[in-house]
């Protein structure tokens, strides 16, 4: 039982597949829609406007401090919907399983996905499972697609909507997720007490929208970090952005890991943080509301959108009073000694 594994039979559509669906998928994801086990889920959205997104997750290791690939796959899609001012409602799940994956690991991941979906208030309505030969996938890959209802009625929330004078608020410390993954990496042998920040943020965003906080743009700083999404917003909106280095919350352990490996924390991935760009007059209200929540208690105002620009750039005011550009990076950061 302990060492039972996924085999090609589990993906072949026969009895083994049925057992997998019944004993794992249906058992944990059970709901009225999914249990019908039709070819497609028929949904009644009752919405003027919907948002839809898809994302695939290939992270290794699949279990890490503070989360796992399952939790990540739900949060990633939920947060992308929330970033558009949508209330996530339905999720689909596509699983690609490598032959040899331990069934007990799959079970852990599925339980985690259900727990996270419940926390976010979303229902898993459809899914698919495939099995590939050993070596053709790294244990498990997950795709999730999400649908949500736009609840920000006042204005369109979009990366292209950031305006001069808007305030930038980050919902908490940056870099936690990537450092939590790095410490698992073979060869680095770093002992550090840190957890991934993987978390669903839709409820804290909904709190802001319910309280009529005027939000122009939102993005979650995943791959490429805070610097990358600020650049994307700056480019999309045609504006310059300026942030204050001393205001950005970064844990001391994250700073230390960055110092040791030569990384820049502004480019580290986060999976439970949101950058919110709101009207200046609403910054205090937004901050207060965020700080009253579990996932936003360390929120900080870190800067503002300055002027419209034909060559948008993101400028960092350094703690010594200097200025530098936060550029768009070419690729992943590599540990360095120089």
């Amino acid at each position, binding site marked *: 039982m302990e060492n039972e594994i996924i085999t090609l039979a589990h993906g072949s559509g026969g009895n083994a597949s049925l057992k997998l669906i019944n004993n794992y998928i249906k058992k944990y994801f059970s709901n009225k829609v999914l249990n019908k086990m039709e070819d497609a889920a028929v949904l009644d959205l009752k919405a003027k406007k919907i948002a839809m997104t898809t994302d695939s997750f290939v992270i290794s290791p699949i279990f890490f401090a503070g989360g796992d690939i399952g939790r990540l796959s739900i949060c990633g899609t939920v947060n992308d919907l929330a970033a558009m001012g949508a209330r996530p409602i339905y999720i689909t799940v596509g699983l690609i399983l490598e032959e040899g994956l331990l069934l007990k690991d799959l079970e852990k991941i599925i339980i985690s996905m259900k727990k996270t979906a419940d926390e976010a208030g979303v229902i898993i309505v459809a899914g698919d499972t495939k099995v590939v030969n050993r070596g053709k996938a790294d244990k498990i890959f997950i795709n999730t697609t999400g649908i949500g209802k736009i609840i920000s009625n006042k204005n369109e929330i979009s990366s292209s909507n950031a305006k001069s004078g808007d305030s930038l608020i980050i919902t908490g410390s940056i870099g936690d997720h990537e450092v939590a993954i790095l410490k698992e990496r073979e060869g680095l042998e770093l002992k550090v007490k840190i957890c991934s920040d993987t978390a669903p943020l839709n409820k804290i965003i909904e709190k802001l929208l319910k309280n009529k906080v005027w939000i122009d743009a939102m993005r979650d700083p995943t791959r490429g970090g805070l610097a990358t999404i600020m650049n994307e917003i700056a480019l999309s909106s045609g504006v310059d952005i300026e942030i204050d280095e001393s205001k950005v919350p970064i844990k001391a352990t994250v700073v230390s890991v960055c110092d040791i*490996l030569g990384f820049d924390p502004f480019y580290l991935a986060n999976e439970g943080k949101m950058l919110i760009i709101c009207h200046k007059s609403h910054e205090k209200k937004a901050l207060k509301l965020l700080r009253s929540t579990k996932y936003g208690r360390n929120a900080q105002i870190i800067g503002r959108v300055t002027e419209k620009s034909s060559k948008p750039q993101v400028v960092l005011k350094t*703690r*010594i*009073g*200097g200025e*530098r550009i936060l*550029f768009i990076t070419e690729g992943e950061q*590599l540990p*360095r000694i120089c």
Partner: protein
Amino acid sequence: MNYMKKQNKSLLDAVFAEAAVLKRQINIMEVCGTHTMAISRHGLRRILPCKINLISGPGCPVCVTPIDEIDKAIELAKIQNVIIATFGDMMRVPGTKSTLSKQKSVGRDIRIVYSAFDALALAKKNMDKNVVLLGIGFETTSPTIALTIVEAAKRKTKNFFVLPEFKVVIPPMEALLSDKDIRLDGFLAPGHVSAIIGAKPYKYITDKYKVPCVISGFEAEDVLQSIMMIIRQFNHNEGKVEIQYKRVVTYKGNLRAQQIMKKVYKTVDSNWRGIGIIHDSGLALSEKYRDFDATKKFNLKTPKYSKEPLGCRCGDVLKGYMTPKQCPLFSKKCTPASPVGACMVSSEGTCAAYYKYDI
């Protein structure tokens, strides 16, 4: 303003007060690539008095490694049963035709290590393969690799090798001082190299050329204080070596590290990319440890196709003849995404610092 900001402002004010007495612009060279990056990351260039001109020097080991050495490493990677172990800095540096990163993508066994000891551990784990560590670095790094070679010898490890491309810092400083095309009024000397070699070796330069030389730490406050000390010396017509980074650097340096280096290495003439051959500016393995030299083991020769990219002015940038922005290729043909020279892609490259950080 919080307490830290007020402190930093006082330090900057002190720099301005010292610089107010200057009768002309002075050129201060920050030798070390880590200083170039620190200056850019803290945005110091723009807030310093305009009479202070900071010139970036050749202290970026990746930048000064000639292109044929990169090509040799790439050719090594193609040999069956060879694992290339390298610090991350080298992965994206352009060789004549390829990079280590691209070679890794096509299946060559190239592994990034954090420490030289990790490379030795790789050799132990892979007894059927030969592990070659790319030996890039100045005197901060070369003693750590020397220690690893000594350990490998102790263990009688037969499948661990080093490709020695080490450089030392004092000879290029002297070469630049005797170059009539640049006027250098002071040096911001490398703090971590000096932790190893001490302040003593700089005395030869300051005695001969009467140029201020301050050994600096890497925090913004360290750099500002060091710049102030250089200006003060200049204003008093002094040219001596001072240690700003006292918490780490002593006059004699780390004698144990120096002893190990003397045992494992011998000084040789070395080719600096864009500068040329500088006498006694490199380190090769001594006779006793020659068997660990990858060049000897694999009979490595410079590939016939090796050649410097056309139009690359890295050498002029490294010597401080021009700023990156003055290079005609800068940000046009040469960007971090498609670098022509090492200065643009190296984690400490002057061109990379200007491109990425400077407004």
